[in-house]
């Protein structure tokens, strides 16, 4: 057994119009790590994710799931997609069904589960994303944030081993962002692998165990949040800013108010004072 759940070796990808979206990406994602991928618009995050469950096929290079190379045959891909779920960046590309309930049931139905099991999973996914009241609403009458939550429920209901979230917190209000973080936490405790992309450096800093920084189709940096977000050269290169918490920490430290320990969230910062 490989110690990596997902792995990529020298992956190149080019869109049909000639845009080189990935240029020689190599990355390995360790099991049970909370992974965040950060990078500016057009860095290639979404393109990268679509390689992880075989939707896009690299022009060059290889992708591995649990040490096994992905083969682009129907049966292999079906099996892979049962295990690796993606919540798309734009919920409109994902939602198709008339009602929310049907929408969420689509994935589990494809897993050939017994109907009562499908129902249980749908109910549970709706509950954890706070979309129960929207159950019988048609998907086209939802607000954007609601659509986003339904698209998350879509994939949760399939209970895959790896869940990839492309910009999960975009459009969400603070309350639902908080709820989503709870979902991530729970998934992590259940032993699932959570991978997300985000523009929110504060979120990436306080949530992730390991961070990949992308820029123009290349991984320009990687490491623990502490390493990545204190590397000003790297941040500048990738057009990112330092997390607010670290700014404050640096300022307070300069004035001699703080101890050595790097705070991961506001509470830890206050404790250190």
């Amino acid at each position, binding site marked *: 057994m490989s110690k990596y759940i997902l792995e990529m070796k020298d992956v190149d990808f080019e869109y049909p119009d000639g845009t080189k979206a990935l240029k020689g990406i190599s990355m390995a994602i360790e099991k049970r790590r909370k992974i965040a991928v950060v990078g500016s618009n057009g860095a290639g995050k979404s393109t990268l994710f679509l390689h992880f469950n075989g939707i896009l096929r690299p022009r060059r290079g290889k992708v591995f799931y649990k040490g096994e190379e992905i083969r682009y045959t129907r049966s292999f891909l079906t099996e892979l*997609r049962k295990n690796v779920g993606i919540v798309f960046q734009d919920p409109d*590309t994902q*939602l198709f069904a008339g009602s929310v309930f049907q929408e969420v049931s689509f994935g589990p139905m*494809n897993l050939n589960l017994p*109907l009562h099991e499908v129902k249980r999973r749908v109910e549970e996914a709706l509950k954890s994303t706070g979309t129960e009241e929207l159950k019988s609403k048609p998907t086209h009458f939802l607000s954007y944030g609601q659509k986003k939550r339904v698209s998350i429920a879509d994939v949760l209901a399939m209970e895959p081993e790896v869940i990839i979230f492309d910009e999960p917190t975009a459009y969400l209000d603070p309350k639902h962002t908080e709820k989503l973080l709870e979902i991530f936490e729970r998934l992590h405790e259940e032993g699932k692998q959570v991978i997300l992309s985000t523009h929110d450096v504060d979120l990436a800093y306080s949530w992730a165990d390991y961070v990949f920084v992308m820029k123009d189709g290349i991984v320009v940096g990687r490491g623990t949040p502490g390493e990545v977000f204190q590397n000003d050269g790297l941040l500048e290169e990738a057009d990112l800013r330092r997390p607010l918490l670290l700014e404050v920490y640096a300022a307070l430290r300069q004035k001699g108010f703080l101890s050595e320990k790097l705070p991961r969230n506001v509470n830890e910062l206050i404790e250190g004072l």
Partner: protein
Amino acid sequence: MLIDNYAYTNKLRNVHPGEKLAFALITMAIGFIPNLYVHLVIIFIIAVVLVFKAGIPARVFCKLLFLPFSFLFIGILTIVINPITEGDKAVMAFKVFNASVGITQESLRAGGLLFFRTFALISCFYFLSLTTSVVDLMMVLKRFGVPAIFLELMHLIYRFLFVLMETAERIYISQCSRLGYSSLKTSFYSLGMLTSSLFTKAYRDAEMLHVALEARGYDGELNVLEGEYCVSIKNIFLIMVTETMLLLLALNTGGSFR
């Protein structure tokens, strides 16, 4: 005011869609009997059920009913006004070049009957579309053995209709707010842009949707869980009584217009 809204919010939404479909279809079938009383009673019954049972505002139903009015009126005119010959008893006649055209008692009768029949059938149709969502309707059709491919097409077309509408609206608003329709010339230009980008966008959306469906294990069949409804004996009984009454009315008042 989207009709579709009512299909999801009306008070009859939890009634078994099969019952609603049966009511609409049987009433429609009876509505084909050429009998003015039957037509009027059908319109009345549907109006009452929609307004008092389903809670659809009367204003909305009236507005919908008169939507096809002008179209219908022109259609009826061509039936009412006919070329007439010497022997006909015309109610009204006039000469166009060498032919004389006019309205006879029979044509008036036929036109009137058609007019009310159309309204009766349209109201049956409105009953279905105002109380039953496409999603529920498809479930019933599936039970009746309609091939899956048709139903899936229906499902996707339904969804894309809204995506298309939303996109068109968004593009339109964005064009308006940048003065895209301030003069005739820019209006034509903007409209052209809207149509062409709408279709390229729709095509792209369809492609993306396919990708997203595949990501969730799509294998050529859209399986979703059906809603749960209870069959109500009371409703079935009421439907049967209503339809029988309509049939009796049709038989007792004869098949013609007086």
